[in-house]
C-alpha cells in the first residue's frame, strides 16, 4: 500500500472503483442533460410570439366557438320554429343573427384566453424546469391542454348563453304577439323576458364576465 516517501498508492480495486465512479457521473450527465435541454428548448419555443402552440391554440379557440355556436344556432331555430316563428320571418332572423354576433364576441374572447394560457404555460414551464421529475413536469404540457379546455368551455358557455338569450328574446316577442292576438294592445304590457344570468357580457368585450366557467382552470 505505502510507497516511497510516505505516499499511499491506490489498490487496483480502488482505481477500478474510481474509474467506475467517473463512468457513473458521465452516464448521469448523459441521462439528464438531454432531458434538461429538450425541456428548455420546448419551453422557449412555446413562449415565442408566433409559436405553433399559440397558432394551434388560437385556431382551436375559433373552431370551438364555431362548433358550439353552430349547435346554438340550430337550437334557436328549433325553439323558434316550435313557438311558431317561421324561418325567414323578422323575429326568426333577429334571433339567429344575434347568435352570430355573440359568436364573434366569444371567438375573440377565446383567442385572448388562448394567448393568456400559453403565456401562463410558458411561465409555468420556466418554473417547471426546476421541478420536473417531481411529477410537476406534467404541468408544462397540461398548460396547453388547459388552455384548450378553457377555450372550449368558454365557447360552450357563451353559446348556451347566446341560445338562451336569443331564444328568450324571440320567445318573448312571440309570447307578446300571441297574447296580443287574444288581448289586443294590452299585450304590450306583458312582462319582459327574464334576464339571462350567465355568459359573457353581451354588450361587448369590456372584460366584465359573469360566467364562472371563464375562470376555471390553472
Amino acid at each position, binding site marked *: 500500500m505505502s510507497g516511497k516517501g510516505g505516499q499511499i498508492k491506490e489498490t487496483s480495486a480502488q482505481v477500478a472503483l474510481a474509474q467506475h465512479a467517473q463512468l*457513473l457521473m458521465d452516464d448521469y450527465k448523459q441521462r439528464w442533460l438531454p432531458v434538461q435541454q429538450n425541456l428548455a428548448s420546448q419551453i422557449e419555443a412555446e413562449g415565442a410570439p408566433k409559436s405553433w402552440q399559440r397558432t394551434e391554440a388560437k385556431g382551436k379557440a375559433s373552431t370551438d366557438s364555431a362548433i358550439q355556436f353552430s349547435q346554438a344556432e340550430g337550437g334557436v331555430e328549433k325553439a323558434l320554429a316550435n313557438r311558431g316563428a317561421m324561418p325567414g320571418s323578422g323575429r326568426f332572423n333577429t334571433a339567429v343573427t344575434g347568435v352570430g354576433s355573440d359568436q364573434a364576441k366569444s371567438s375573440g374572447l377565446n383567442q385572448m384566453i388562448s394567448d393568456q394560457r400559453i403565456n401562463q404555460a410558458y411561465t409555468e414551464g420556466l418554473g417547471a424546469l426546476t421541478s*420536473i421529475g417531481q411529477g410537476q413536469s406534467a404541468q408544462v404540457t397540461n398548460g396547453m391542454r388547459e388552455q384548450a379546455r378553457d377555450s372550449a368551455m368558454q365557447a360552450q358557455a357563451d353559446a348556451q348563453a347566446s341560445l338562451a338569450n336569443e331564444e328568450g328574446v324571440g320567445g318573448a316577442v312571440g309570447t307578446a304577439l300571441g297574447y296580443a292576438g287574444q288581448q289586443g294592445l294590452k299585450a304590450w304590457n306583458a312582462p319582459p323576458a327574464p334576464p339571462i344570468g350567465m355568459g359573457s357580457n353581451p354588450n361587448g368585450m369590456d372584460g366584465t364576465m359573469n360566467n364562472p366557467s371563464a375562470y376555471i382552470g390553472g
Partner: protein
Amino acid sequence: MISGTSFLIEETPEILDAVYRSLRHPIARASEIQDLKAQCEARTAMCISCDDGIVVITLRPFGEALELFVLLAVAFRHGAFQRQEAALRNIARDLGAQTIAFEARRTGWGRRLGPQWRRRGSQEFVRYVNER
C-alpha cells in the same frame, strides 16, 4: 429536474466565478474555485444549481463503496440546506453512492445537522444515503 429534484446541471462552470464574486465572506479561495472549474471541465466533478443555491459534487470511492462528496455549496437564501438535503440524497442515490459527505469549514454544523450525520475526522460530516 435531475433525479426528481429542483437542481439543474450547470453546463458551463463559469457560473462559479460569478457566484464567487458575489460572496461577501467567501470561505473558499479563488484558486480553489479555479480548481473546481477545472474538475468540472474534466468531468470529475459536476456543478448543479437550483433556486436555493449552487453545489459542486463529485463521486468518489470511499472504502469499497461510492460516496457523493460535496466540494462546494453556496446557499442563495436562508434554509437552503434543510430544503435541499433530501434532493442531494436523491442525486446521490441516482448516482449509486452509499454515503454523502462534505467538509465543514464553518463551525456549528454539528448542531444544525440531524442525527443521521456523523463526524468523520475533524472537519467532515457523513451520512448514509438511505438512512432515514
